[in-house]
């Protein structure tokens, strides 16, 4: 017995096993006690409620959701809403961030001033306040009857931006998006091995994508419907076309602008971290300013900013939960309402955490892969 504890490896192993056992035991007892308490209170547990209809609708979803839809559908719709506003917002934030970052290091006084003002204004105001401000702006536009007409094709009102749509079903759009990705990848990899084609990669992809779009448009036509569906005011609302709701726009703009300010600073830091010698060398080769930026500065800076950028992107994804403040039915809001309506608090909170864990882990995983791929070999970074 004594010799067992004198062996340091065995002892370490023993202590670790003990800690693991205690942790698992504590967690298991938490779960069992909670379950027993809920049973005692007469509260049903489990995920059976996911099949029950909710009895309440949400006003924005990527697929049809009604008051008769089960909880599973409304939760999925919320998750997709979060992904939609999150991914679009993050893309815009990165785009804005790169522009602002370049402005901040620019030697042009005006550009520099614009960049600095942007960063200071939007980085120093809490995000929730910005969400409220944008929402107030978008909901104080004229009512549908006095909507601002955009050449008769689109309308801007306090109900959102109404835009014409093509007569395509949801599946057509899914096929189009997947097809674009597939053809783009195939053409790019095919052309990269043939010098004659390499110059024409972009026109080629564009042509194929347009062809795909036209084919889908005509195959998926609803008989008797116009190819282009223009919104039209009827009674209290616009019929036809697609509505970009103010709740969505406000959250999207707030995330893009707030994220843009932060990412701008990350980009600036990345650019400033580049050894001046590299840029001077590029200039010495006779490259123009644009070429220096595109071929030397940004690729090198990209490596430096990637880890910080990944952090910021995950942060922005979590910030979509602010949608609840302005009535955007994102995953958090849908879960929160479901908790109130069904009373299945623990199950729904675990779904909420699970959902965000999967989204953010996926982002982190993709960014890590990208980082490893881009790292300069032999520099350990």
């Amino acid at each position, binding site marked *: 017995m004594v010799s067992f504890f004198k062996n340091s490896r065995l002892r370490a192993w023993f202590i670790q096993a003990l800690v693991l056992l205690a942790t698992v035991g504590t967690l298991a007892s938490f779960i069992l006690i909670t379950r027993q308490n809920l049973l005692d209170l007469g509260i049903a547990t489990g995920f059976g409620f996911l099949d029950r209809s909710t009895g309440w609708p949400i*006003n924005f979803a990527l697929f049809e959701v009604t008051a008769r839809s089960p909880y599973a559908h409304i939760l999925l719709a919320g998750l997709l809403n979060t992904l939609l506003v999150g991914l679009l917002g993050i893309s815009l934030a990165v785009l804005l961030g790169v522009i602002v970052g370049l402005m901040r290091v620019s030697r042009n006084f005006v550009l520099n001033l614009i960049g600095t003002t942007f960063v200071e204004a939007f980085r120093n105001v809490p995000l929730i306040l910005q969400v409220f401000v944008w929402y107030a702006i978008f*909901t104080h536009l004229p009512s549908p009857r006095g909507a601002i007409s955009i050449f008769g094709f689109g309308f801007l009102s306090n*109900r959102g931006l109404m835009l014409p749509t093509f007569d395509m079903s949801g599946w057509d759009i899914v096929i189009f998006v997947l097809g674009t990705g597939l053809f783009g990848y195939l053409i790019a990899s095919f052309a990269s091995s043939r010098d004659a084609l390499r110059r024409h990669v972009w026109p080629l992809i564009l042509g194929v994508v347009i062809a795909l779009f036209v084919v889908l448009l005509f195959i998926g036509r609803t008989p008797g419907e116009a190819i282009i569906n223009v919104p039209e005011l009827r009674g*209290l609302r616009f019929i036809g076309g697609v509505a970009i709701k103010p709740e969505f726009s406000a959250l999207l703009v707030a995330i893009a602008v707030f994220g843009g300010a932060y990412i701008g600073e990350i980009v600036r830091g990345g650019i400033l971290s580049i050894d001046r010698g590299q840029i001077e060398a590029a200039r010495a080769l006779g490259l123009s300013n644009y070429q220096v930026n595109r071929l030397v500065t940004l690729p090198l800076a990209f490596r430096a900013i990637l880890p910080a950028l990944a952090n910021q992107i995950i942060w922005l994804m979590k910030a979509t939960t602010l949608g609840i*403040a302005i*009535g955007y039915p994102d995953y958090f*809001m849908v879960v929160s309402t479901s908790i109130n309506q069904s009373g299945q608090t623990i199950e729904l909170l675990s779904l909420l955490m699970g959902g965000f864990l999967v989204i953010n882990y996926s982002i982190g995983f993709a960014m890590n892969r990208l980082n490893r791929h881009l790292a300069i070999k032999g520099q350990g970074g």
Partner: protein
Amino acid sequence: MLKIIISIISAVAVGATLAGPARAASGDTVKTIKERGSLLCTGHNGSYLGFAEVDDKGKWKGFDIEFCKALATAILGSPDKLQIIPVSWAQRFPALQSGDIDVIIKVTGWTMGRDTELGLQFGRPYFIGPTTILTRAELNAKSAKDLEGGVFCINAGTSIERIVADYMGARDIKYEALNFEKAEELRAALYAGRCDALAGFGPFLAATRFNAPNPEDFVIIDEVLALEPEGIAARQGDDNFIDVINWMVSALLTAEENDVTMANVDKQRANPPSPTIGRLLGVTPGIGDRLGLSNDWAYNMIKAVGNYSEIYERTIGKDSPYNLPRGKNHLWKNGGLHYSLVLD
């Protein structure tokens, strides 16, 4: 070792006893109130406009507060023998069970869960809470059907979400539900014109209209989507107190049915026009001694707060800023749901 185990067990036992629901003695609440000399009644943590609000002199007023005064007068003879205890919506049930308050008069819906699981006993409903629609006057909507295709702002996570979905679904009226978690955002969205209508509890809608930048821009539609009966709640197992509460509410309605008002109650008592009025005002005995109260309790109460109609119009009806139509809160003979019990 044994000592340690025993002390742990006793500690757990003490903890369990303390953690159990602390119940006030649910015996004779009327006696307790009389001994204390004041009634402990519910207020609100803040203002619930029209029902329990604090005026600029720091005094409580509102529909529920008037019923607290009526009950205090019925038991103790004076509306001033009343203490309003501010409690939140969630606190009201534990506060009653722990004896911090004697009674809950706080627009409390009579639900089966509360009646059976929370140890409450409800008196007959004293207010019928309608779920209805507040809309913009410029839309000229007379019914829910006229709002076809409109955007409805609704408080997320409440029963209103389901009530609207059921009501509109059953009539095949298309609408768009815009849900907000907080009442402030809900109101702001309506004022800004983001939604055409706000569906909710009638009194809340009346207060929303009252608080609007231009109250005349908004109208409450005379269509009831659902009703919730609100009852006065006491602790389970106090039969006498429930009797007092029921007859208090009934006496206010009897007074309205017979046109007995705060102004003419003295005249009516001096010369009762009907046997019922005579019994109500204690000219012929019976109304008090059978409840363990004085025979002039109803007279005192009407003198202090008036009849049901006077309370309603003064606090939430046409003599108040909220101007909530009486609707289903009328007497039965005026198209409402209220009636008095038989006073024999």
